[in-house]
């Protein structure tokens, strides 16, 4: 364990692929999508495919051993389920000592409750999504919430790592949670960026994204803390970068300026060269604009013809917006632990203006050491993270 390094010691996830890390891994191995017909969200747009967590709020309460309470936002339930798994994997479940921080990313927050009952916006804020988790886990004594749209969870992980780096905390659980809401489904629909079929990241014929929901959290921990409690790390959180595209609120710049900068910053912090990156879990939403812009940025960072294997998992889970940086961080760590790259679902034809195509088949024994993960948000809030295999 290196003194200044940030380690991942636990992870938890819930998505359209199921509840828990193992359920995600099965689906990724089998190339099975969780995107399909809308069953839980009460929208008139039944024709739009979504990546729903296949359980209503009553069932989610049951997973947590709670009596059903219709006042609890769905985002809060997803968060608590995912945090519980992450803490438990890290050996920080029941009876763990206090002093753990929680940094959560969300944008929808309690919007699902607000759109039902408009009088309650001031209690259904972004921050309210943490209340359930805080109530359930007394080992957590500080929580804050990052809200940078679709990069919220990634930025939460970075802030969490800085809490450790500056000596303020030894252990921080961080990630993001977002439920589907009519508000943002209709928002994305009004922008005409939802595919009416399953999305096709990096495909020439891509026609938009599918929205999804879920939560993904990591336990970040200092080497000192891991040593003192004789716990093992899953991987190292070796670099991260945040930059702003500063181009448009909902569109990416043609050459992916923000994405280029965020990846460059992450590489710089990790001390790695572009050729050290084994593979990339792209933001890859399946919109015409994102995939071309991100592709151009990848070519700028790695060189045309030198881009490492790229995959997008958006066709598995849908775009889980604020949660995506957390859920996909878990996918990156699964890749590192199993030396595996999932098939980039939905792809068939290369984008003419790009020099690469995404991973076509699930691949094993890839020799993965460093995985780059991108999460980009509205407003050009672009973030990149690097997860590295523990050497030696």
């Amino acid at each position, binding site marked *: 364990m290196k003194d200044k390094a940030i380690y991942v010691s636990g992870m938890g996830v819930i998505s359209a692929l199921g509840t828990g890390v193992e359920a995600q891994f099965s689906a990724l191995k089998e190339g099975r999508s969780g995107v399909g017909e809308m069953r839980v969200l009460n929208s*008139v747009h039944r024709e739009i495919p979504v990546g729903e967590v296949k359980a209503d709020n009553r069932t989610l309460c049951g997973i947590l051993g709670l009596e059903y309470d219709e006042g609890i936002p769905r985002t809060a339930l997803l968060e608590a389920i995912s945090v519980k798994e992450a803490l438990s994997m890290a050996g920080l479940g029941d009876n763990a000592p206090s002093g753990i921080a929680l940094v959560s990313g969300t*944008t929808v927050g309690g919007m699902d409750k607000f759109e039902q009952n408009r009088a309650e*916006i001031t209690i259904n804020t972004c921050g309210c999504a943490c209340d359930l988790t805080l109530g359930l886990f007394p080992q957590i004594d500080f929580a804050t919430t*990052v809200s940078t749209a679709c990069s919220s969870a990634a930025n939460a992980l970075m*802030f969490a790592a800085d809490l450790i780096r500056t000596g303020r905390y030894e252990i921080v659980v961080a990630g993001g949670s977002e439920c589907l809401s009519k508000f943002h489904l209709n928002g994305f629909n009004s922008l005409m960026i939802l595919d009416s079929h399953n999305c096709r990241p990096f495909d020439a014929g891509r026609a938009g994204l599918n929205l999804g929901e879920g939560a993904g959290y990591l336990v970040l921990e200092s080497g000192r803390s891991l040593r003192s409690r004789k716990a093992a790390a899953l991987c190292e959180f070796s670099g991260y970068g945040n*930059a702003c595209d500063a181009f448009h*609120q909902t569109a990416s710049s043609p050459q992916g300026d923000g994405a280029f900068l965020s990846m460059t910053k992450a590489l710089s912090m990790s001390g790695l060269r572009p050729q050290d990156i084994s593979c990339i879990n792209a933001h890859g939403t399946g919109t015409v604009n994102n995939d071309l812009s991100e592709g151009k940025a990848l070519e700028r960072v790695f060189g045309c013809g030198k881009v490492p294997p790229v995959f997008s998992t958006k066709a598995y889970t849908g775009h889980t917006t604020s949660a995506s940086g957390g859920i996909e961080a878990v996918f990156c760590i699964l890749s590192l632990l199993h030396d595996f790259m999932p098939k980039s679902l939905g792809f068939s034809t290369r984008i003419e203006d790009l020099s690469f195509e995404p991973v076509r088949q699930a691949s094993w024994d890839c020799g993965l050491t460093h995985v780059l993960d991108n999460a980009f948000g509205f*407003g050009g809030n672009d973030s990149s993270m690097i997860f590295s295999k523990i050497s030696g």
Partner: protein
Amino acid sequence: MIYVNAISSLPDDLAKKDELYSEFIPPMAARRMGPSLKDSIVTSVLALRDSGISMPDAIVVGTGLGCINNTEKFLKEMIDNRERMLQPTAFINSTHNSIAAQTAVYLKCHSYNCTYSHNGISFESALLDAVMQLELGRIHTALVGAQDEFLPDGHCAVTFALSDQENSSTLCAVEDVTVFRTVDDSYFGDRLDAFLERNALDLSQIDRIFSDSRLPDGIPFTPITCRRTLTSPAIALETACRELAGQNSSDVSKTWLTINTFDNRDMSFILIRK
């Protein structure tokens, strides 16, 4: 050391605000923007000007309720039109992060950009982010904003320009920030002790305490009166910084503290020094 090199805040007076908006934001763009977007742009431009920073290394915003006007607008249209035929404009400008992001677009600033929204500690979370990155030497300057839109009970529009370099406009230094959650009443005292110890201080060495909220008995403090929003702790910090800067350096009490116990749950301490 981390210095507050400028603070810009907007008046409650709507006519005066409109004047400032029209000075800095083209009318076509201004029409689409909610109040927080405009407030953030104007206070950021003024804070940069007063601090002598040309392009910040970070733009970090804390907002309790985000772009509540545009959120309400899109939601109302969605309900009234039964989810059909919706215009995206209000949605586009409804996300919390559009405040910091649109400020970056206006400034053409590709630097670090982040937004915090966590009830009564939204601003302090943003401040803590900037302070940590300054401590780590990753950035040298930052704009830290507190933005909450005009609601019947108040609004907040303040931007602080922070730097690791002191200059002629410096108001004071930010020594440390901590944000925490109270478990019970005794916890507040424990956290205050730990915070002071971390800074090699005891309570008797704190010359003045500012708060916009109620404090436990036995802690004398200067109350800040402002119309409260979720980000009004930023106004408490602004008041403290300005008063500290205005003190005569010979007779000045040097170490001040602001305490936020806004909702008796999430709390913060900010230590400033002349």
